[in-house]
């Protein structure tokens, strides 16, 4: 479980997060949603320590992340996997080398064991026969899946995904969502996803927090989204007339 306590982040005069206190549960897909500029990415970067908070802190299973030494942070990060918005695959390495990189860096596995683990992770994300391809030779959806394979190769306890569906078609988005959810449940890990894809919200949103102007405007799960009377939430999720009609018909049923 990950817990934030009164998390504040300011950039100069601008206060992007104004005291976020929330929990991200183990074995669940936790979603951070909100409009562009609401502070989603900032919150995610604070959770993984890429930004330092201006106030408050983050707890990883009751361990105060920001009280850890640099060495302890690195040790903790070996239990963390992250999928970046643009996948962040190393261009000069093949798919196999990309996934193998954390194994090369942190384990004493033999070459054969590493290859087996890489192939297992590729199988897990439904990719075969791409070991020797470079990232530039694969599609956006494949790159996301390679990114997930790399993120799970060290069997992380915490998985972070920054806009996993951005730039993907709806069908591929669903595949990625299902993949992340099944990995989360199978391995009982804490997964935090930053998204503004409403399909993801309604499909895999087991714990959702909605950010607005640096505050939590609403929190709940995908079932509660439909029945919530929160105006900002409804305005955000069912933004178009088409989606509003869908909601109304769903409620009537």
């Amino acid at each position, binding site marked *: 479980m990950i817990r934030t306590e009164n998390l504040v982040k300011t950039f100069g005069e601008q206060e992007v997060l104004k005291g976020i206190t929330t929990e991200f549960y183990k074995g669940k897909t936790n979603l951070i949603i909100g409009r562009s500029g609401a502070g989603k990415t900032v919150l995610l970067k604070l959770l*993984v*320590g*890429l930004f330092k908070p201006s106030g408050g802190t983050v707890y990883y299973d009751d361990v105060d992340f920001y009280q850890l030494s640099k060495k302890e942070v*690195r*040790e*903790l*990060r*070996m239990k*963390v*996997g*992250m999928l*970046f*918005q*643009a996948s*962040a695959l*190393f*261009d000069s390495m093949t798919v196999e080398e990309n996934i193998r*990189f*954390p194994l*090369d*860096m*942190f384990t004493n596995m033999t070459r054969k064991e590493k290859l087996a683990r890489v192939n297992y992770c590729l199988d897990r994300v439904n990719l075969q026969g791409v070991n020797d391809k470079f990232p530039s030779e694969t599609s956006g959806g494949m790159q996301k899946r390679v990114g997930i394979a790399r993120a799970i190769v*060290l069997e992380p306890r915490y998985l*972070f995904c920054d806009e996993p569906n951005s730039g993907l078609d709806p069908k591929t988005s669903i595949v990625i969502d299902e993949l992340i959810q099944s990995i989360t449940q199978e391995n009982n890990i804490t997964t935090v996803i930053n998204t503004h894809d409403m399909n993801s919200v309604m499909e895999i949103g087991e714990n959702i927090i909605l950010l607005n102007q640096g505050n939590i405007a609403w929190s709940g799960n995908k079932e509660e989204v439909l029945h919530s009377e929160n105006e900002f939430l409804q305005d955000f999720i069912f933004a178009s007339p088409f989606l509003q009609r869908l909601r109304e018909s769903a409620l009537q049923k």
Partner: protein
Amino acid sequence: MMMGTAISKPEKFSMYYKETMRQMNDIGIGSIVIVALIAVFIGAVTAVQFAYQLDGTLVPQYYIGYIVRDSTIIELAPTISCLVLAGKVGSNIAAEIGGMRQKEHIDAMEIMGVNTASYLIMPKVIAALVVIPMLVAMAAFISIVGGYLSSVPTGLMSDAEYIQGVRSFFVQRNISLMFIKALVFAFILTSVSCYQGFHVKGGSIELGKASTDAVVFSDILILLADYIIAAMYT
């Protein structure tokens, strides 16, 4: 501060070794042609210009060989080679690391638990400290050959005179001075370039600026260090 973080125990020695070897290849092998080409002309121009200046004086002709040897060893080979390498290698390092910063590769490594300052900087600095003195030594030798090629076949002096000049008044300490300069300049050009690349913020314009700054600041610091070393050791 960045160098303090960079100089730390590697997570996995074999990974750092592999990266250092790759950098040695990129910096060393990748720069042989340009350094050799420049060295030939440094020697050739030095010989021709001194021949012109000494023409009609009582100074013996073989002094040209001596001047070419010492000026290249003490000054021209380390300084000009490293100024050129700051342009070629320095801009490349800044662009490579800056590009990694922009594409979130550095963040990805950080999240994995890699000491990015160490993994991205230390191999480059070590590789440069090993191969740049070699390149400078090669440049000094080629410069002397360049001086020969521009003066002997063209009839400025005889083969014997040039060889005599090259073998005259040899001071072993000058070789040490050349290597000290090469080591200091190698450290400057890699550390400055790594710093510029590592701290890139923004887009392609900032990346271009970082690359340019890497070259400009490296060049200025190399020239400053050149003066300090010259004042200290000569």
